[in-house]
């Protein structure tokens, strides 16, 4: 279980959120809902360490951390809205980069792990392609595989269905539900309510539950 408390973020005088609390149960999918521009992405960036918060603490596995503690933020994998795949690397290299450089995994193990992930996400045929050769849905899944390769406790998605057609959205739903079955905790930021209905165990309404 991950419990976030007293999280506050402001840019200058503009308060994005104040004293926000959130609980994510193990293996659950939490959907964070609300209209565009309200600060949902800022929240997810704060959780992944891309933005600093003014205050906030988190309890993960019974241990307390500051919200920006790398020990916590490194446990959250992020799927970006526009994917941010590395254009100069093939699908396989995109996924292996962090395990090889950050975790110092040996190449054989990293390749094996990558191939498993590619098979699981239906991307085996795309392994040697470059990101520009992929469809939106495929890029999305490469982003998911890249995050999963670091074995995070939580996968966070920023608007995963924006720009995807119905079929690709269905695939994202399938992937998320499969990961859920495997016990991966997930947070998804979205304004796509039908999509949230399909995947979410819990919802968090940013507009109503957040003090500003």
């Amino acid at each position, binding site marked *: 279980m991950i419990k976030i408390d007293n999280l506050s973020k402001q840019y200058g005088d503009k308060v994005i959120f104040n004293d926000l609390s959130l609980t994510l149960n193990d293996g659950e999918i939490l959907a964070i809902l609300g209209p565009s521009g309200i600060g949902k992405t800022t929240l997810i960036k704060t959780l*992944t*360490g*891309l933005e600093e918060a003014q205050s906030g603490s988190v309890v993960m596995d019974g241990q307390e951390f500051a919200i920006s503690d790398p020990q916590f933020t*490194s446990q*959250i*994998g*992020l799927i*970006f809205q*526009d994917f*941010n*795949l*590395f*254009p*100069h*690397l093939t699908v396989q290299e995109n996924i292996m*980069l*962090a395990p090889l*450089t*950050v975790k110092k995994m040996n190449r054989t193990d990293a390749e094996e792990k990558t191939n498993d992930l590619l098979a699981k996400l239906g991307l085996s045929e795309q392994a040697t392609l*470059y*990101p*520009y050769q992929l469809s939106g849905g495929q890029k999305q899944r490469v982003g998911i595989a*890249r*995050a999963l390769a*670091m074995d995070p406790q939580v996968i966070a998605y920023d608007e995963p269905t924006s720009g995807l057609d119905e079929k690709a959205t269905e695939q994202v739903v399938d992937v998320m539900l499969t990961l859920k079955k495997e016990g991966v905790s997930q947070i998804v930021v979205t304004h796509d309510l039908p999509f949230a209905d399909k995947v979410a165990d819990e919802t968090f309404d940013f507009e109503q539950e957040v003090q500003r």
Partner: protein
Amino acid sequence: MENVMTFLPGILSGLQMTLGVFFITIIGSIPLGILASLAMKSPYFIVRWLVNGYIWIMRGTPLLLQLIFIYYGLAMVGVPFGRFEAAAFAFIINYAAYLAEIFRGGLQSVPQGQFDAAQVLGLSKMQTFFKVILPQVVKIVVPSFGNEVVNLVKDTSLIYVIGLGDILRAGSIAAARDVTLVPYLLVGAVYLLMTAVVTIILRGSEKRLNVWR
């Protein structure tokens, strides 16, 4: 034809000098240019200020003047440089300034999302730079970099001013001695050959970098 044989050795030894300055400039100015482009993004005002000043001076004055100043000027204040060392130093710091501006442009065109993605995956600043950012910058800057390299081929002819014997100087000497323009023709052909080689190499690397977009 007999004529050609008499001035060929001079021109060949001049070519050696030209190529020496060319390669040492390439090798020295690329890392220095990268460092300067990174320093322009430094959080410290004083570092940015110094680097911008350096680039302003290097781009704002003629390379010929810089050569004279570094060789004769510094000798007068007690910092003697050998001729070749002075030429190498002047060319490296001059070209590094131009390359720094090119790299800075390349660095700016890599989207913030690339830095974010690397950070979320846990890559250090160094790993992010070398594994994610630099390869993308290289692809962006190859065409403008190529332009500078072609300029460099021709700029090497400026070293005559501090008494170094490059290929153009060898040509001039032969032309004056034999009262003929043929050595100049030959020198021109050699410059064309050098720029052709540079162009072919750069086109090749552009092509290789085009496997990804």
